[in-house]
């Protein structure tokens, strides 16, 4: 682990809020992006991102560096929050949150952009877990062991799943137009 980051973690564990602010700045965009592509609502994604960092602060004393990176710890919390939100939304029978941003009324800013959200277009072929795997592996470039920590699955199982996802996408993208 990076020495500077380790120092921030150690200080944060002792209650140093400024040090924790440093951790926040390093990871906030990554966590936001991930959550955004889970919920497709900007304000909600911002709220949930804040929740991730609050929950992490509260549980930081129990974070063990030997069991995984801080990045995978944060992503695991983000993932759980997004899943909880999705579950609650299903329970009250609101609209499907897995819709691509280009069809989502709440996110007008994205719609106004000249370039369509190609990522969201890609994700419409994937389920919730498959989306996460693509984000972690290809967009956040996490190692397999980190992804395994986040999803609480074995590395081998992650590799197999990713292989299947790639096969699926290959077939879908072959016939599609993605702005190339």
């Amino acid at each position, binding site marked *: 682990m990076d020495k500077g980051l380790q120092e921030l973690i150690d200080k944060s564990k002792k209650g140093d*809020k400024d040090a924790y602010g440093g951790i926040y700045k390093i990871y*906030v965009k990554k966590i*936001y992006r991930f959550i955004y592509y889970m919920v497709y609502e900007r304000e909600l994604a*911002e709220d949930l*991102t804040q929740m991730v960092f*609050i929950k992490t602060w509260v549980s930081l004393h129990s974070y063990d560096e030997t069991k995984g990176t801080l990045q995978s710890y944060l992503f695991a919390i983000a993932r759980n929050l997004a899943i909880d939100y999705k579950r609650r939304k299903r329970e009250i029978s609101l609209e499907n949150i897995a819709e691509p941003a280009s069809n989502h009324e709440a996110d007008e800013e994205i719609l106004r952009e000249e*370039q369509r959200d190609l990522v969201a277009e890609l994700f419409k072929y994937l389920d919730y877990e498959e989306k996460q795997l*693509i984000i972690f592996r290809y967009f956040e470039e996490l190692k397999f062991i980190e992804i395994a920590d986040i999803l609480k699955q074995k590395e081998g199982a992650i590799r197999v799943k990713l292989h299947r996802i*790639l096969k699926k996408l290959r077939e879908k*993208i072959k016939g599609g137009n993605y702005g190339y």
Partner: protein
Amino acid sequence: MDIEKKLKEFKKYYEKVEPSRNFMEQGSKNLQDRILQLEKSKTERRFYYLRPFALAVFTFFVLIVISGGLVQASQKALPGEPLYPVKRLSEDVTARISGNQVNRVENRAGEIVELSKKGKSSKQVQKAVEEYKEAVDQAKRSRKNTDDIEKRLEEHEREFEQIKKGSSGEEIDEAIEISKRGRNDEDKKKDEK
């Protein structure tokens, strides 16, 4: 088609998504504020859960102080007065713990004297005399502190003789008789030893 290569290209589109400017500018400060709020409410919650316990401890101590004060105040209570039951209760407790009946006898005698001095009804004085007799009998049965009891009974007799002068009832005579009998019985026990 190299799908993995395509996906890595998609990364630049993925990274275009960012939080709002306001969020980026205020986010860190907002986070710190929320953390402070959380810590404050955690402290308040801790005290909130401790409150019933603290209240129970405080009430316990207050009761101890009040009961101690009550017992103290009740020592001069006479039959028919509100604190009199407290006096009798504390006597019973003391007698049970120490096995010493002297205090009880002393209190009953004192009550007879006070009731007579205050000119209370003969019925009340009579009741007090009956209680005195019961206390003396109980003290004799216990066979403890016999010398002390004898001394006290002698004093009681003298006191009763004094108040007899100002009293017209027969109750005081009876009280005198009780104290004499009590001493005589004590003398007999000594002789037997």
